[in-house]
């Protein structure tokens, strides 16, 4: 299957973000008018290459590179070797962002690991909440990549390329499957309380895909989407009356000139108005039980005195909103939490960031499961890379208290949406330097994620600059072990 520009699965579909006929006179007026009726009709299942297991995804993006050997991947041998230099042979080919190779020393982890769940998973004491649902989770300890700088690594993880300008995973899915939601965008991104991202809006960009496949930035308070609220002084009634006339006049024009784009415009205005009515409801948590709010930790006191005060509540709120969006048909939600980039003060930094995220993330998993949503909702947790087993001895550092970027082996986890939980995939070597068993490259992860959505990563293509581009570029192998239903 080679994708046509707008509809890779060959399905005629009009939805929230793809209501454009776009081309010049490509769609016949008759079929468009007919499709106006489709607004009211049921959503039609998209065509996929294979039967999909996942329908939706919540991607918990941990920006900065969380330290795997302090959270997920215990390394007793590394602890023994604390303070020792690395074997030179291992360092030869390696590039670091900041470490000075010659004087660098291995650094053990101060965290304690314990086994949890029926599957007996090792987790750090920084993750007391997550420890209670390890049987639903597949941990991958053998992730690897080549990008040792933040933005290239993030772009790689989000879009399959270290260069700016490629479509992100959510855009590919939107392009491949269309939108399930009529009143909300199908691809939403949220950041946490004003902490910016290295890539800014390129973190949810549609790259070279048409712009309607781009993620939409939501915020978790006030008016969720830019320009959703009426201008000052325009009441809902005035807005409604205005829209009536806009559509009346657009219909006069449609009759006069017959161009199908006018019909699309009418439809877009109707959808916009509906979104104005429904989207604010998304943020209204008054219907959530006290137990739910507490489980997510919306009311937790935020003790930090630094500029990140307010983080805990903000991130908890994002997690709850992610569930609410999933319930309302949003396909792909990315929640960014910035930043796990602990070059120094690693231990206190990890405490802070696990304090922010462990409880709400766990609550989200349990909430999804309890509501029967987890089966079809894929949850992914991870950053752009991990951190070095070496302590970071950057030139101007007086003491060594952190770790540098490490893309050569790191951990992520996945749950729900057709993923086989309660297992660990892959191993790193005894000091956590390289992958020792079952390596999973970022491209492999992407191939698997698309597979879970019923898409063959080799067939989901888009012609751009003379080439058929894929999320997985020219690589990617399915990670069978991750699948509940092996391919």
């Amino acid at each position, binding site marked *: 299957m080679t994708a046509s520009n707008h509809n890779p699965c060959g399905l005629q579909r009009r939805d929230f973000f793809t209501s454009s006929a776009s081309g010049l006179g490509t769609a016949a007026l008759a079929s468009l008018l007919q499709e106006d009726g489709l607004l009211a009709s049921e959503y039609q299942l998209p065509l996929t290459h294979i039967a999909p297991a996942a329908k939706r995804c919540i991607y918990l993006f941990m920006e900065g590179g969380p330290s795997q050997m302090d959270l997920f991947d215990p390394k007793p041998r590394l602890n023994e070797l604390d303070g020792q230099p690395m074997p030179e042979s291992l360092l030869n080919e390696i590039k670091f962002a900041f470490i000075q190779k010659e004087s660098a020393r291995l650094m053990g982890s101060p965290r304690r690991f314990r086994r949890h769940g029926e599957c007996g998973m090792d987790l750090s004491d920084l993750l007391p909440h997550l420890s209670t649902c390890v049987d639903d989770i597949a941990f991958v300890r053998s992730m690897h990549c080549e990008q040792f700088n933040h933005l290239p690594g993030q772009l790689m993880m989000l879009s399959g390329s270290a260069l700016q300008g490629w479509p992100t995973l959510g855009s590919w899915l939107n392009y491949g499957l269309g939108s399930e939601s009529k009143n909300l965008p199908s691809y939403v991104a949220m950041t946490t309380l004003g902490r910016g991202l290295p890539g800014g809006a390129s973190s949810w960009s549609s790259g070279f895909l048409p712009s309607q496949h781009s993620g939409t930035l939501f915020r978790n308070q006030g008016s969720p989407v830019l320009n959703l609220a009426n201008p000052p002084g325009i009441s809902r009634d005035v807005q409604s009356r205005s829209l009536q006339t806009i559509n009346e006049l657009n219909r006069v024009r449609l009759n006069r000139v017959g161009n199908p784009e006018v019909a*699309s415009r009418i439809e877009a*205005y109707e959808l916009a108005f509906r979104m104005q009515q429904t989207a604010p409801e998304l943020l209204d948590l008054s219907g959530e039980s006290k137990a739910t709010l507490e489980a997510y930790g919306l009311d937790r006191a935020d003790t930090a005195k630094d500029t990140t005060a307010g983080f805990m509540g903000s991130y908890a709120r994002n997690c709850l909103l992610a569930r609410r969006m999933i319930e309302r048909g949003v396909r792909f939600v990315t929640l960014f939490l910035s930043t796990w980039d602990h070059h120094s003060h690693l231990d206190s930094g990890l405490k802070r960031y696990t304090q922010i995220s462990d409880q709400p993330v766990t609550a989200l998993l349990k909430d999804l499961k309890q509501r029967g949503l987890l089966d079809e909702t894929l949850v992914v947790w991870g950053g752009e890379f991990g951190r070095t087993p070496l302590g970071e001895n950057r030139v101007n550092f007086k003491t060594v208290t952190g770790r540098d970027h490490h893309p050569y082996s790191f951990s992520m986890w996945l749950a729900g949406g057709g993923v086989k939980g309660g297992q660990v995939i892959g191993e790193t070597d005894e000091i956590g330097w390289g992958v020792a068993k079952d390596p999973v490259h970022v491209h492999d992860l992407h191939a698997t994620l698309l597979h879970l959505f019923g898409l063959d990563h080799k067939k989901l293509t888009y012609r751009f600059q*003379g080439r058929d581009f894929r999320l997985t570029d020219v690589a990617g192998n399915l990670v069978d072990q991750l699948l509940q239903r092996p391919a």
Partner: protein
Amino acid sequence: MNKAIYLKLHLSSRGYSNNGAFFSPENGDPVTILRQQDGFGHSALIPSLISWAARRHPAIPALSFPPNGIGATAARVRMFQPRMSQPNLCPILVTTALVLAAVQNRSVASDVVDFQRDVAPILQTRCLSCHNERDRRGGLSLQFMRSVQAGGESGAVLVPGDVDASYLLGLILPEDGVAEMPKGEAPLDASQIAVVRKWIESGAAWPDDVVLEPPVLWSLKPIHRPNVPDSVVVPAQFPIRNPIDAFVAARHADAEIIPAVGTDRRTLIRRLHLDLTGLPPRSETVEAFVQNTAAAAYEQLVDDLLSSPHYGEQWGRYWLDLARYADSEGYLGDSERPHAWVYREWVINAINHDLPFDQFTIEQLAGDLLNAPTLEQKIATGFHRNTLRNTEAGVDLELYRTKEIVDRVNTTGMVWLGLTLGCAECHDHKNDPISQQEFYQLYAFFNNTDDVGVPATRPWQIAEHNDAMQIWQTQWDELLQQLQQFEMKDLTAEQKGELMTKLHDPGKLTEINAIETLYRTKESGWKELTTRVEKHNKNRPVQPSTKARAFAERRKDRRETFVHVRGAYNRPGDKVSCGTPAVLPPLRARSAVPDRFDLARWLFDGDNPLTARVAVNRIWQQLFGQGLVATANDFGTQGAPPTHPLLLDWLATEYRRLGWSRKAMIRLIVMSSSYRLSSSSNSVAGQQQAGNQLLWRQNSYRVSAESIRDVHLTVSGLLDRTTGRKGIRPPLPAFVTEVGRSVKWPVSQGSERYRRGMYIFFKRTVPYPMLMTFDAPDATVSCSRRERSNTPLQALTLLNDPVFFECAQALGVEAAQQFVEKPREAIHMIFRRCLGRPPVEDELNYLAAAHDEVLQLMEGEETVAGGENRSAAMTAVARIVMNLDEFVTRD
């Protein structure tokens, strides 16, 4: 309407010859040429290919071509002995003569299969694009007998005389309509298969001296000026105003399609204004044009608009898309490029001055290498300084330097050659005749440039500074006089001198205390005065210092260029030097070591088949919404073929003839009847469902993101029409700017806030949301054609974006004040201002009803928009009109 007539025109316009026999200049032997159609009913010989071969085989004498027959039937069969003895030579050998034999497609007329007549055309059209010496898909080449005998990876392909044992036949025989070969294409038709079968049965004869050429891409064929069709019957509503119309009409007649009527004058003037300047016409201009039915009125309008400074903005913006212009570096940090606008201003000026396209190109690619380059020519090299740059701490700088060069090669390929060279970064191009080595030969041109900042303070900056300085100095002098009154009475000459020095070089004066001892500081007024002096001193206008981002050729430590194995810069392969793709005409360098200047000149070599076609297609695209080649950046095999190949070539030759004057080319196109057709898809009964490939009507489409802003600001009267200069930052909510790291967004003040959309500061990681919502490119790579989506987010933006609401308010208030107690007249005014036409009765009634009801609603509500109710209700009307499809559409 008459296919036969049209076909005749078509043939004669290409100089087809149906009975010419050609002879080899070498030995006088007759040479046979088989006709091959390329899908458009025309085809041509390919001197470029020949010359390519000639360069690889210098022993072969120059080729001669019959003067008139060249543009005619394609000839691909060559008859001279392959020089297989030279191992380094490419096995595709060169013919030295070509002969036309037949024009008609031949079927097998007799039982005897003639290889050249019957088999060769099938192999050429259906097999050779993959199975040639260069690509050898499956290890197989079908270019000459010996390669066929050698077979491919799967072994022998045919056994002469034994059809059943011949692998080839099994591959091409369809099963359920699908055959294994040609891969991914329709199978051969039954008569073709019969030919192949018969050929194998009869012993698969293939004369030793016959070498087949792979089919040559239409866009690589030389450009010949086609004759203008001169006997096409056209309907009255479609007068032939210039040759464009003749070519377009010929296709209408051929396809039996009826052209639409010419559009009405109101639509026409709005179309022309939007296309040429990106701004809508003023109501008065529209009325004057409607009244003035003189024959020259339209032409005058065209000339006026082409000399408007806004023309350079509109056409400059298209160019900036290609140049991937932005005001920041990209990637993490994404720091500001504070003087990037200097290049933008250069583009606008160059286009306004109609710098010919060849010069326009040469200055941008190699302005620094011109003889004694002017500052403007150096500024022009900013074109390739617009690439993304990764400055993240700890990053592999060499990696990203090479990525910038790769982008420069790709962009050069797409913008001027319409070739997707990027495919050859890691391996030979899979589809187009560009090898990986050739990619790095082009890369070499850009591998020795240094990024420099050229002092480029603009004359207007200096003038503005001088003005500001004059005002400042007057006030300063006044303050000094006041100071003088506080001087101690008995100052020595030396002390007076000290004061003079310090006060007249205010840069040195940091604090007044330093000279306080010379004044009577106890007197009243001293403190106030010194405060003012100090404050004024600090407000001294800063001398502008602008540095243009430019290229300079590296003279020392020059880098060598190597092929990057699989695209990895740290895996150097063969060393290469500057060079151009072999499939294109040779590079005529000024010296032994070619440079960027040679490359730029080569683009405009008279034999270059691509540059003119690509350039003229872009102009066409901007005036019809779609190019004659729909894929403006890809004229390769994966791109779209031209809908009007003859017209495209005629325009290409005309562009050259017009001295590459962009204005002249635009003028030519907009003067045609084809441009002036109605864009309504129902304008011809029964043709509504038809696509518009054959241009029976104009196209109707939403204006660009920047123009959306511009039309709002224009009709509301808020637009600040300043051209060029620095970018602006319209207000943005914090949650938008906060998604990036440390994004400062100091909002522009005063009328600057109302400048055109193209001046909005483009920060790559935090692009202005309105622009992105309306499909502005993200400036990561060159953009040849924008998407035009139509989404609910766009509706929300048009309805609720504060800037657009402000525009509605301005217009609503103006209308309400001008027509007190006369709402219908006010509505009329708003409608004409926005759409350039009076409302029809229905429209007026709908709007009047909306106005009355909104007014009632507002009177029933506590809060009202824009203060007074009537103004607020009229604002609501203006807002409705500004949200109409027609308002944001160029019909």
